């Protein structure tokens, strides 16, 4: 706990650097990655991430030190080559994109690991720490490195802001973008370069193996919460920043621990929470909506049966035993009583001992259901020429769903008919 307080107080300048750096790197990766997500190119991010490893080794071999500029340049070059190769393979051969990505990803990563091993065995003292690029080490973000990586991150964010309108249009409707004369090829080139750069700087914190997670997961999580693209990008960068900060904390308190896996665990947790809890799009919200629909259907079905029982002797307010309802449509008695109790609570039925009767409101609601059911049966037989014995199930669903507006259109189109295809009366108000 002490270490958390110490970390969050930011008194140690080293902590400040590392925390600030990690947040900047992960947030900028998340922002650029959001466009990969919207373009449905999530796998491409993964391919680039793995393909930068040989570039880093190459940069190191040529510079002889872990000069950040050399490493970034090397990584940028091999990252780009991998993309060009994927493009080449998909257009010039019959191999599909997913196969091409898998192919390129493994080949480049294999070469990268090979080079890394050779460098490590070479006894070059300067190489120590190069392997941090595999799984990330936020704590290494200090001094010169931080300045270089930080500048790249800020440039990334600035370019995204300037070209936000163009990038979004391309992600939504590329043909239209071409039709208004946007330089689509050039804008795509810029976006791809940004993705490669985002990967290159992100791997310092996350590492090549898990880099795709920080590109894609924040955007995927953010999408659950909003339908506004600007809010989505803000949330994605916030989620990225939170995971980056927690990664930095882990790296600070447990220096032997690689940062990447921790960042991935945090961002994945955020994604899972979004997946379940987000309003409207989240799983729980969908589940609740479904449950409510089922409740409404059950309620209305019971009201309908009470109404139909009433029709038989032209009196809708006679109290009925549950067994009378069950004789019309099978229910477990317990379930039926719980539905009746709910209807009672809402004021649609009155209770007298063990008997239940429609209230005025209950009768109105039931009458509307019965009316829509019979109108829909008539619509299906008249306009769609469906046999009268096939229309009942359809109408059973539609009766709970129809909006008042559609109900009115249905009535008008059919001309307020008196009876349905089975010669049952269609009840109207007044």
């Amino acid at each position, binding site marked *: 706990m002490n270490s958390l307080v110490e970390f969050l107080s930011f008194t140690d300048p080293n902590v400040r650097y590392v925390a600030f750096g990690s947040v900047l790197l992960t947030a900028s990766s998340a922002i650029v990655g959001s466009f990969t997500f*919207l373009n*449905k190119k999530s796998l491409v991010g993964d391919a680039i991430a793995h393909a930068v490893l040989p570039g880093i080794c190459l940069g190191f071999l040529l510079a002889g030190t872990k000069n950040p500029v050399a490493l970034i340049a090397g990584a940028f070059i091999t990252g780009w080559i991998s993309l060009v190769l994927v493009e080449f393979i998909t257009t010039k051969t019959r191999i599909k994109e997913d196969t091409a990505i898998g192919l390129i990803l493994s080949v480049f990563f294999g070469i990268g690991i090979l080079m890394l091993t050779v460098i490590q065995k070479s006894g070059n003292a300067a190489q120590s720490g190069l392997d941090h690029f595999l799984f990330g080490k936020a704590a290494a973000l200090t001094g010169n490195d931080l300045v270089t990586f930080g500048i790249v991150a800020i440039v990334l964010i600035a370019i995204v802001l*300037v*070209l936000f*309108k*163009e990038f*979004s*249009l391309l*992600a*939504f*409707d590329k*043909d*239209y973008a*071409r*039709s*208004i*004369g*946007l330089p689509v090829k050039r804008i795509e080139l810029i976006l791809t370069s940004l993705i490669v750069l985002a990967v290159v700087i992100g791997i310092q914190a996350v590492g090549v193996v898990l880099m795709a997670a920080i590109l894609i997961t924040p955007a995927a999580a953010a*999408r659950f919460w*909003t*339908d*506004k*693209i600007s809010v*989505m990008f803000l949330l994605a960068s916030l989620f990225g920043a939170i995971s980056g900060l927690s990664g930095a904390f882990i790296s600070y308190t447990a220096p032997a621990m690689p940062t990447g896996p921790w960042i991935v665990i945090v961002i994945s947790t955020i994604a899972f929470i979004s997946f379940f809890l987000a309003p409207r799009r989240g799983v729980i919200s969908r589940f609740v909506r479904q449950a409510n629909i089922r409740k409404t259907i059950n309620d209305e079905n019971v009201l309908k049966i009470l109404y139909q029982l009433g029709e038989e002797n032209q009196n809708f307010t006679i109290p009925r035993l549950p067994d009378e309802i069950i004789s019309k449509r099978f229910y477990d008695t317990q379930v039926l009583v719980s539905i009746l109790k709910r209807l009672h609570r809402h004021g649609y039925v009155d209770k007298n001992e063990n008997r239940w009767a429609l209230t005025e409101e209950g009768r109105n609601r039931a009458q509307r259901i019965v009316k829509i059911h019979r109108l829909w049966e008539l619509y299906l037989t008249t306009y769609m020429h469906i046999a009268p014995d096939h229309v009942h199930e359809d109408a059973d669903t539609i009766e709970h769903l129809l909006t008042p507006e559609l109900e009115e259109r249905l009535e008008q189109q059919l001309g307020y008919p008196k009876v349905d295809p089975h010669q049952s009366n269609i009840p109207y108000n007044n």
Partner: protein
Amino acid sequence: MNTALEIHDLTVAFDRKPVLWNIDLMIPQGQLVGVIGPNGAGKSTLIKAAMGILPLSSGYVRMFDKPLEDVRERISYVPQRESVDWDFPASVLDVVLMGRYAKLGLFKRPRKADKDVAMDCIKKVGMEGFINRQISQLSGGQQQRTFLARALAQQADLYFMDEPFAGVDAATEKAIVTLLREMTDQKKTVIVVHHDLQSVSQYFDWVVMLNTRLVAAGPTDTTFTAQNLEATYGGKLTLLTDVADLMHRENYPSREENIFKP
């Protein structure tokens, strides 16, 4: 009559396989034009090639007697509704504002005036009740009207529309046709890829009948005849299809290189 669109000896190939052969076409200004033909006839390909979205294997396209690049601001394109993912995080207003991007140019944000134009166009298509609705929450007809509003926001003189009536209810179709009529009354030219043969003579002044080659083009009264319909929908040119397939298999270029180009 002034020409809105001239297509000269246009051939378009996908993967070496020609899908449009040597189209020659001229469309006068101020007409409501229907492009008709069976599935796979190359209707969408024709307008995409005209808009420069697809590369041409041969031929050229001129609009208002100028190359496309010189008059692009006067041309608007409405893609097929299914060509985009409607789950994109955008509202109706966001999409319609895209119609202003061509006038705005790179880097610039939409201004207040652009929003005014967008709102005006949204009203014209009767979508004012849905301005902030997320686009996946719209019905097919509403999505189509959103696309139409985006095209209107471009304030163009020549419109290409790829199946604007697909997935649209009867009332919306009627409203759209009325709107297109108003546009042609203001001397704008509207070219529409259309599927429903029933309504062709009722909607269009001019028809283009297509089946991988141009069967006929001209005023609807004289061109939309039983004979031309038979040629468009009936006679599949099997030999032509087989030759195209062969070019695809053998990787043959659809034009020899270094030939004279205008």
